[in-house]
């Protein structure tokens, strides 16, 4: 759906969509092949159309544009909900399987993720503070796109801050468990 959305935003080559997918959804880490695989399928389904064929043997330079049917599909997706939303949390899955022997290494993984989220929070929060200064100096921006970007930045800061705090709690609880196991207070099985 992101690939379709990007083509609706602007006509582009397969390589261009792949680059924008990586830039605009950096944290999602979509597979590099997502644009290459999905654009021909979207074209088959009539959601995008081939506008200009690239040089022979260079399918990455094929240029695609959106069709009205594709726009409709994206609009339906934007207005649809998935309740409850699926959460694919790798740490939660790993918690299901770890043993006492894995605990120290697992705590280290949680710590690294916590630090990464804290760094992401720092970046987003600094942007929020800059936006606040700008708003106080120049007034609230009138352009709704700029407003939307401001809301998105706050949401990013919130999300990464919440994740940082959540992982901090998880790490501390696991550290306490580890201390108990080390002191012989739990069977660790």
């Amino acid at each position, binding site marked *: 759906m*992101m690939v379709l959305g990007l083509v609706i935003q602007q006509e582009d080559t397969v390589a261009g969509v792949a680059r924008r997918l990586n830039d605009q*959804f950096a944290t999602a*880490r979509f597979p590099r092949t997502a644009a290459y695989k999905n654009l021909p399928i979207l074209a088959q389904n009539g959601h995008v159309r081939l506008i200009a064929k690239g040089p022979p043997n260079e399918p990455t330079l094929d240029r695609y544009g959106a069709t009205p049917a594709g726009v409709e599909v994206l609009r339906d997706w934007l207005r649809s909900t998935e309740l409850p939303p699926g959460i694919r949390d790798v740490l939660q899955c790993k918690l299901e399987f770890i043993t006492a022997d894995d605990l120290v290494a697992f705590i280290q993984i949680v710590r690294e993720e916590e630090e990464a989220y*804290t760094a992401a929070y*720092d970046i987003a*929060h600094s942007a929020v503070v800059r936006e*606040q200064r700008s708003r106080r100096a120049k007034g609230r921006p009138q352009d709704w796109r700029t407003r939307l970007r401001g809301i998105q930045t706050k949401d990013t800061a*919130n999300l990464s801050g919440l994740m940082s705090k959540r992982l901090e709690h998880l790490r501390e609880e696991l550290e306490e468990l580890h201390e108990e196991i080390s002191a012989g207070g739990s069977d660790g099985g």
Partner: protein
Amino acid sequence: MAEVLSTEGVWKGFSRGGRWTGVLEDVSFQVGRGEVVAIVGGRLGGKTTLLKVAAGMERPDKGSVSLGDRQLIGLGDRHLARLLGHEILWLDRDGPGLEMEVSRFVGWPLAVCGRGRREAERAAARALERVGARECTGRRWSELSNWQRVLVGLARAYAAGPRVVIVDDLLDALGTRATEEASDLLRSLVAESECRCGVLMSASDVESAMFADRVWSFTRRGRLKLMSGQPSGEGEIIPFPQHAPTDRVPREA
């Protein structure tokens, strides 16, 4: 950046059921002039204790707390009480006794430092006007909404003109727009003091601390972890990690 408030290596614990429980462990932080610093942590985790120690209202078991170049530890109660009304202003949701009239509450810090009742009333009226809470004049604390209590608390800070404003959970769970408004008022307070004053605030969630210059996380173990902003006097930029965890986002393209 000159510091208005500084804690260094603070430890504090309580005896619970005959067992000593640590609440603050080796806590150090600074609030610079013109800065808003937030401490984010869960409820009943010890944030209020930390703020009370920073305000001189509670003594730490170990460590130092200073207001500018003055050590708060070791000051006599009378001296501390004068600082608390005048140079350090404490704001929380509890406010004064429920029956206290709003103007009296707002002007109180000026009245206790000998500025006279009339002047305190005039300053209170100006401050209530400034924060947009003129309609609260003449009402009692018990009659105010939560948002009006926030505004009246901030008016008190405007009227008193302290060196440090300590805000305990006052901005918690206000919602995005109200948090923004309250934060703007805090920013204006700092700006109108010509950046002479600093603000230390606690919050239960990151959203309530969104507009602080620096955000510390208060951990369950009573320690501080810097979440955003540089420690006073340092300018190092934290790079975005290359291994940012993102497996939570479904990989459906």
